[in-house]
């Protein structure tokens, strides 16, 4: 084992009735490099209460999150992966990805990058400056979709006062979101404001939060968009 282990705390959100397979490592070259040193998975309800915790076999490449959560009653949990690893596993950045599909749905599965929420070694994240102002742009035409932003606080002690700002042409609508440690919230974004379409959203927080922009089919509420926002002010 290396004496210079790196750490990564990454975070996602999970809802019932989805196939949700999380890649614990970035598949690359020799099998020996694919192994994490340790990884602990925990799931938290909206108030931050830990509802499930598992020591995951670090030799696993894929973690079946949908199976691990089973038929839980929470409508949404924040899932944290607290990993220790040799830096050779992640050659570019500590990216890892996940596959997400509503069981039985005709919709396309989504494949997304799991949020790297620091918690370890910021110099390996590639964003050592401000990384808590994020942006996402929406298509200007109307769709039968409902948009929102999911924010989760991965810190152990500090409550975060975050802002979610939705832009409609030259108008803006701000939402204040308070997320205690390990708590999370989904902030809906109105699709239009007095006939003007939602054009983009920004999130601002005192430190890095788990953040995803979400689009759901209006009828089924199933996810068609689950993506990271973009950090530009860095």
């Amino acid at each position, binding site marked *: 084992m290396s004496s210079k282990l790196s750490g990564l705390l990454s975070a996602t959100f999970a809802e019932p009735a989805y*196939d949700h*397979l999380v*890649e614990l490592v*970035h*598949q*690359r*070259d020799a099998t020996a490099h694919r192994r994490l040193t340790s990884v602990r998975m925990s799931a938290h309800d909206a108030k931050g209460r830990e509802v499930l915790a598992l020591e995951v076999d670090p030799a696993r*490449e*894929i973690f079946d999150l949908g199976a691990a959560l089973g038929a839980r009653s929470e409508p949404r949990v924040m899932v944290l992966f607290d990993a220790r690893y040799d830096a050779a596993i992640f050659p*570019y*950045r500590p*990216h890892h*990805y996940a*596959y997400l*599909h509503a*069981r*039985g*749905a*005709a*919709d*396309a*599965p*989504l*494949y*997304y*990058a799991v949020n790297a929420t620091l918690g370890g070694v910021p110099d390996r994240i590639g964003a050592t400056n401000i990384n808590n102002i994020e*942006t996402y*742009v929406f*298509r*200007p*035409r109307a*769709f*039968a*979709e409902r948009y929102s932003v999911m924010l989760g606080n991965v810190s152990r002690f500090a409550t975060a006062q975050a802002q979610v700002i939705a*832009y409609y042409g030259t108008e803006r609508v701000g939402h204040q979101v308070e997320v205690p440690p390990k708590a999370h919230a989904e902030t809906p974004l109105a699709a239009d404001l007095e006939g003007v379409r939602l*054009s*983009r959203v920004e999130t601002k927080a005192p430190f890095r939060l788990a953040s995803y922009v979400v*689009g759901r*089919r*209006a009828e089924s509420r199933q996810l*068609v*968009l689950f*993506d990271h926002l*973009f950090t*530009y*002010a860095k």
Partner: protein
Amino acid sequence: MLARALLGVRRERTYYLPWIVRPGLECTLLLSNVEARFKEGFTRGPCPATVIQYDARGRTVGRYDVSLRDPTDAVEVGLGDTPGHGFAAVVSDRIDSDLYVTLSDGTSYTATHGRHEFVEHYPPWTAAVLAATTALLALAGRTLPAFARDQYVYVGPDSRSHVLVMNLSNVTNRVRVVLASADGAARRLLVRLPPRGTHLLDVARLADPVSVTRACRLRLEGNAWFNLYLVGAGARDLDGPLSLMHVK
């Protein structure tokens, strides 16, 4: 880098995005320069850009000139209604933001972003040597493994990954694909991509039928620079809604 210099290979910085058009599925790019809001001296418009659309055979099938009024402007570029796939290059001196590619069935859309990388240009003599060498290797189902990518792909009873492989060079790219199943068995395929061409790889045809969704290991090796996007398909496979996703 030394090998590239010896071979005379030049890398041209290029922002590219994948595209797929299917019956009932439109592909639209969403261009913006919102990052410029945070850069002193770059906040004024207009910001012109040209989109060049290449099809699977590497032919230019579309060219679109657009202009962004200011950093908060966003412009849609529809990539036509002719079924096909390929990649689109966005040429602009001023755009720094990540650009989006969206797929829509008319009621909702999925989205991902493009990549700011490069396209490789090989001089004629290097291209000729490469063509002769890789043609010989192809007889044995092999290629010159100058570049390699590893990628997890997914196969399930009602969803699956396809892979859009993009040849980001001006030479023919023979890409060797190896899919490793859970039982350790490997399926192999050699794909020939024309310059700037693409191939939509149907992973499910290489994998055994499954009752639950599972991941497979995919390895690709090519004789020139290439990259890939995952294409997500649901129960109706390529006839239904699709998603695109970039990978690092």
